[in-house]
């Protein structure tokens, strides 16, 4: 308890080692982490959280590096969380996003953390959320969260952001499917990176057409911007768009709705995790296996089996 209070004091006073350690505890699901996160909560809610997502190799990390530099020029402190997939077979991960983040690596007002997606069953967004809250409490003005735009869990991470930037590259081709699968609806700012490769105008036009067909009207028309992140071209415009989006959220009152939606989703996720955890305790794993056996023998249907499994907490 005392060491926990000490850790919290250090996090709030800006001690980078303490911040990093608390992040590890949160990621590991350490018993002390929950208590620490509870005490941290009143110190959060000040940062602008920006999700950056898109296909592998589209230049997200390079863009994040340049965006961070630009936010620093504007006098804002920056936190970065870069999520990469964990191998489902070995549990290991190669986290290489820092390779592209050299411009800001030595800036004491920037904190970069790499994160493996691990085996968090749908809980990845909530873990990422914990790291975001720690950086928020630590006093970072802008928090950039990089994820690979591939699966549902990444989409959920992005939902924890105030502003979502979708990074694409010229020649959408196969990505059209991915875009249809929900990326389009969650994008607040679209970036066609690698505009030096040619074909960027066409990709931007395709995106524009698709946005025209988006049935949801929030009063914010997502801008489509072209960048060459590698050579620092078009970055200012992206920063402007991110900032304008936040202004829009504040002016329209949509900010409160978004945060509320986020807290609700997060709460539900936590409840779900804990319900499952508590059902799996008390030797109930055997019970689960038995129910599965019954389903396979056609003695029980899945819904009835679920009812029975839930009995201890009904």
């Amino acid at each position: 308890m005392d060491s926990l209070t000490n850790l919290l004091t250090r996090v709030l006073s800006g001690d980078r080692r303490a911040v990093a350690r608390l992040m590890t505890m949160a990621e590991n699901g350490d018993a002390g982490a929950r208590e620490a996160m509870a005490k941290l909560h009143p110190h959060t809610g000040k940062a602008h959280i920006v999700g950056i997502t898109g296909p592998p190799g589209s230049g997200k990390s390079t863009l994040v590096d340049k965006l961070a530099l630009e936010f620093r020029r504007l006098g804002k402190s920056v936190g970065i969380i870069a999520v990469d997939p964990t191998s489902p077979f070995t549990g290991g991960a190669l986290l290489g996003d820092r390779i592209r983040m050299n411009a800001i690596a030595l800036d004491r007002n920037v904190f970069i953390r790499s994160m493996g997606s691990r085996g968090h069953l749908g809980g990845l967004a909530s873990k990422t959320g914990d790291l975001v809250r720690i950086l928020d409490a630590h006093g970072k003005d802008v928090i950039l969260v990089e994820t690979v735009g591939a699966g549902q869990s990444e989409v959920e991470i992005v939902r924890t952001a105030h502003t979502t930037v979708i990074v694409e590259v010229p020649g959408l081709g196969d990505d059209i499917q991915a875009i249809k699968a929900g990326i389009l609806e969650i994008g607040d700012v679209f970036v066609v990176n690698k505009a030096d490769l040619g074909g960027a105008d066409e990709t931007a036009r395709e995106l524009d057409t698709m946005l025209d067909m988006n049935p949801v009207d929030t009063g914010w028309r997502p801008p489509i911007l072209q960048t060459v992140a590698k050579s620092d071209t078009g970055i200012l415009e992206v920063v402007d768009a991110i900032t304008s989006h936040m202004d829009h959220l504040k002016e329209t009152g949509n900010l409160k709705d978004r945060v509320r939606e986020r807290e609700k989703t997060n709460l539900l996720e936590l409840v779900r995790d804990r319900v499952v955890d508590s059902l799996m305790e008390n030797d109930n794993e055997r019970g689960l296996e038995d129910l599965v056996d019954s389903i396979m023998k056609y003695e029980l249907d899945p819904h009835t089996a679920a009812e029975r499994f839930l009995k201890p907490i009904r």
Partner: protein
Amino acid sequence: MDRKIRVLVAKPGLDGHDRGAKVVARALRDAGMEVIYTGLHQSPESIVEAAIQEDVDVIGLSLLSGAHMTLFPDVMRLLKENDAEDIMVTCGGIIPDSDAKKLLDLGVSKVFGPGTPTDEIVDYIKNNVEPRE
């Protein structure tokens, strides 16, 4: 608890090859660790800063350039200045025995000679990382 060993693999100095470092990084990943790979030409400052932010258990430095006697003292000093001496440091590359001895005196945990099987590196890290509470 879902604890993972976290390792920073960095390639300080000016020479342009990181094949060896990448091989080690992959082996550690395949052994279930989270490997933060920072790429070429890292300065002692950026290595230590990354190690702190990433809260790694181990820093694995790979170098060929013969600059180890200038780089390592800096890394060890910066770790100390940042209250981070508990992070284990290992080193791989072509390092003469006399220098290896000096590095160990500086607080480097282990020097792996060229051609050390990756299994040996994995085992060393698994067996020597202190469990943190």
